[in-house]
């Protein structure tokens, strides 16, 4: 797997690089700003770009814009955004940006090495990794009162499973997180799909997309 990083803070850039190398993930190039990201993506053809939202020179949403641009130039490029805040507008733009894996994680998640590396691998493979705060925000905007709408038909356990699915986790990972058997998870998932009237499918990634499409339709 080939990864590039765009992050202006050296401390984090070097830290993430070291962390990934320890896990045998090859960081092939680093950049400090948006134009730098576009250059290394063009030069190294990576599977995944890990990008900080705020980059010089504007320190606003430069990172999101550069990542979207890189993806437009290289369709299928996985993009994992690291941000210090959850901004639904940016998540929505990424989810709409077409082919390839998508991730949006709060920066502090890099501390949970296992989960972070899992997210990196998932996004590089074309999957999804959304921060649980992002998912919570999606659920909130879909169902503001907490009472109305199709989501109210779900049991608390099913809502938990829905949240984990929206984060992009596989059945096995969900089973591990909730300390239940994969069979139980599969059952919850088929209940959720029936209640929300979503097309059933066996493939993890398609299921994630169906759930996200449902949440975002609100």
């Amino acid at each position: 797997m080939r990864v590039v990083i765009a992050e202006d803070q050296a401390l984090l850039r070097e830290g993430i690089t070291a962390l990934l190398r320890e896990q045998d993930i090859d960081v092939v190039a680093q950049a400090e700003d948006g134009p730098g990201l576009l250059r290394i993506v063009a030069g190294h053809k990576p599977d995944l770009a890990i990008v900080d939202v705020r980059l010089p020179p504007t320190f606003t949403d430069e990172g999101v814009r550069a990542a979207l641009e890189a993806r437009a130039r290289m369709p299928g490029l996985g993009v994992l955004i690291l941000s210090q805040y959850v901004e639904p507008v940016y998540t929505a733009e990424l989810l709409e940006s077409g082919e390839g894996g998508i991730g949006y994680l709060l920066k502090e998640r890099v501390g949970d090495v296992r989960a972070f590396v899992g997210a990196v691998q998932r996004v590089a493979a074309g999957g999804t990794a959304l921060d649980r705060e992002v998912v919570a925000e999606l659920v909130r905007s879909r169902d503001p009162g907490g009472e109305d709408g199709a989501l109210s038909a779900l049991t608390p356990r099913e809502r938990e499973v829905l949240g984990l699915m929206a984060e992009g986790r596989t059945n096995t990972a969900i089973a591990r997180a909730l300390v239940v058997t994969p069979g139980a998870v599969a059952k919850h998932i088929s209940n959720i799909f029936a209640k929300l009237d979503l097309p059933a499918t066996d493939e993890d990634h398609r299921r994630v997309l169906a759930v996200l499409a449902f949440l975002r339709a609100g």
Partner: protein
Amino acid sequence: MLDNDDTERAIQWRGVRSVWSALAMLAAIVVTIVWAATGGAFWPVWVWLGLAVPFMFRAALRSARSAPRRWRALAVQSALSGVVAVILIVVWALTGAGFWLFWPLFGLGVALAFHGLIVGMWSQLRPGPREQALEQRVDVLTRTRRGALDVQAAELRRIERDLHDGAQARLVALSMQIGRAEDRLEDRPELAELLRSARAEASAAIGELRDLARGIAPPVLADRGLVAAVDALGKRSALEVTVEAQVARRLPPVIESAAYFVVAESLTNAAKHARGARARVRLADRGGRLVIVVSDDGPGGAVPTGGGLTGLRRRVEALDGSLEVRSPAGAGTTIRAELPCE
């Protein structure tokens, strides 16, 4: 002492005046009685007029004296003209209403108009020292208050930037190092557990810093400006919100923040009190004034002095803006704010 003297003199004067009033009243009654006894034409009316003249003058002068200094001469002239006019009209009425009355009244009017015109032009040309001082003071206050608010807004954004680049970045790096150590201690679960809880603390600190920064200005507002931020608010609202914006430029940060919080608070209120209603947000940049209108078709009846609305009004007024709440029962709520933005 001086006060006492003044008071004493005032009392004496009041005494003189009341004696004069009493004598005048007495004289009026006496002549009326004499007239009643002797008969003939109603001549006491002349005596009444004569006695009333000093009162009229005094009342007129007293009211004219309270005028501001630069207008006092004009006020005195108009008061005196008024009294003379009244006397003339009474005389005119008593002597059989000829056309002659027109000329003195015309003369008085012209003189008064002339004086008024001169005083008016003069004050246009040269505002008095008091007015000039006040004008300057208002200018200075407006400028410095605006400057202070701009500085404050810039300072807050700098703090937010510093939090992000400094403390937050270090905490993230810290939590990453702890995570790496934790990962290598798989065979020592009790140590790994200690590190896991240390990492949880670091995450909590990062979360608190994030909430702090978000309170200063939501990221999308700082990054993309008012229209994008208000669009995002509309999308996230529990209500169906349409946003119409005619703002083609980035406004000063302090104005953007105030406008953003007006819309955010209004939509939150609408979602709370007008469930299921439709809301409409209009933003217009009209030659130096930003007009913000948030309306809903809910039940109305909002209290304009409610906590949230008062806070908004203060925020808007501190920027020389205005905020108006219209919420008749049964006819929806409209909140309209105007902010100056040159």
